[in-house]
């Protein structure tokens, strides 16, 4: 019952959807569920529009939860601007990804979109200089690197702690595992779009690449995709400015059409009128090669190990050696941070 209602809420305002009505459960349960799915802002929007009317106590509960997430969003945006300043001074070209960018670019009101961290993309050659610049500015990584070259050659992202409790993911690519390694990273820096943050133009991906990223994230990120991320996809699919044929061609060049299609299929749960790109996804036939790659993302248990083996298969020979060495014999600092010895590490990395 709650799940069905959350799907309706996630589709709020999309063409052909029903409006959400009264709460299906207690407001505290609903606030918890909506927050988990990054939908508390959509719920607040539906209340502000008077689509949903709540008794005063329930209203206050939603209002408090929404205000908390918006305070967090403002702090994150301030920290993001600081981080971009640091990268700019170091001469590093960066793109803002995910929550912050989508809040200002895609959603009817940025107050609708909640996010819990910052995501910045830099090119592989800039990963190490960016880490150095951010480190000098006070950021620190939560985990030492697996090897001296792993971050710039193979990592999806490096997680940093920044001012206060905020988290900053410095991305090299858009996904973990084999698909992240297959993406042509040069494409991500073409034709940047801009969003305004505190009056400043901040560079981000163009809408078509946000859609590819969003679809890949829904398909390959969390095992259970959050409905807020699915809503991002549905909103992006509505944009007339995207050349969907070109977008599909890019996905195919990246060998990522399968996860893009699977991600887009998830938007069907929102009940809106299917768009051209969503219908393409519905009809997409996944190849046997992709089925094997997608298995690497399927379950939580053993995910890293399965992704490592699937990644190995898409790498060239020279990269395979460096990748394998980094996983089998990580830097001592990395092993120590995870409480492992050289021997215990070797025992952990096995197929299966």
């Amino acid at each position, binding site marked *: 019952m709650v799940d069905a209602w959350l799907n309706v809420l996630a589709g709020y305002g999309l063409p052909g959807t029903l409006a959400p009505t009264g709460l299906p459960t207690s407001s505290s349960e609903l606030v918890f569920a909506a927050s988990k799915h990054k939908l508390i802002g959509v719920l607040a929007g539906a209340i502000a529009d008077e689509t949903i009317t709540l008794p005063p106590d329930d209203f206050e509960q939603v209002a408090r939860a929404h205000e908390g997430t918006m305070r967090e969003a403002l702090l994150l945006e301030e920290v993001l601007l600081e981080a971009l300043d640091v990268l700019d001074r170091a001469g590093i070209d960066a793109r803002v990804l995910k929550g912050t960018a989508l809040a200002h670019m895609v959603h009817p009101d940025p107050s609708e979109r909640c996010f819990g961290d910052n995501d910045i993309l830099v090119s592989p050659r800039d990963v190490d200089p960016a880490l150095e610049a951010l480190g000098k500015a006070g950021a620190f990584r939560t985990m030492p690197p697996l090897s001296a070259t792993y971050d710039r050659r193979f990592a999806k992202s490096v997680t940093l702690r920044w001012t206060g409790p905020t988290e900053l993911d410095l991305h090299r690519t858009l996904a973990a595992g084999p698909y992240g390694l297959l993406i042509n990273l040069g494409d991500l820096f073409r034709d940047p779009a801009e969003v305004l943050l*505190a009056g*400043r133009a901040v560079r981000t991906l163009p809408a078509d690449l946000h859609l590819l990223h969003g679809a890949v994230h829904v398909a390959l990120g969390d095992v259970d995709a959050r409905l807020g991320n699915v809503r991002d996809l549905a909103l992006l699919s509505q944009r007339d400015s995207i050349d969907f044929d070109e977008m599909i061609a890019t996905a195919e060049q990246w060998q990522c059409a399968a996860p893009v299609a699977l991600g887009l299929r998830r938007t069907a749960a929102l009940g809106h009128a299917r768009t051209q790109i969503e219908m393409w996804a519905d009809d997409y036939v996944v190849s046997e090669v992709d089925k094997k790659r997608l298995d690497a993302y399927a379950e939580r248990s053993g995910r890293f190990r399965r992704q490592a083996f699937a990644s190995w298969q898409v790498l060239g020979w020279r990269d395979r050696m460096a990748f394998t060495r980094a996983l089998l014999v990580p830097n001592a600092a990395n092993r120590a941070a995870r409480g492992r010895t050289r021997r215990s590490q070797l025992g952990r990395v096995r197929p299966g």
Partner: protein
Amino acid sequence: VTSPIAPNSVVRRGDVLWRATLNGVLIRPPGADEVVKLAGTGLALWAELEQPTHFSDLCASLAAGHRADPNQIAADLMPVIVDLVERAVMAVSP
């Protein structure tokens, strides 16, 4: 109304981060440690000041929206605007 800002235009600053909430608006001025919260009618005030607005026009508009006396609105609003200017949330121009 006699005040240092009465004859001037007021506008919200463009270099602040902000979000609308169900109870008002949250604003984070550059470099500030704390978020400024404009509750209740603060959201209407914030919306009014997207463009530079003469203080007297602002008071007249808010008074019409709330069916209140413009002089009373001006008296209530003056310290709020002065405070927000000091906190780098709003700016005043001649």
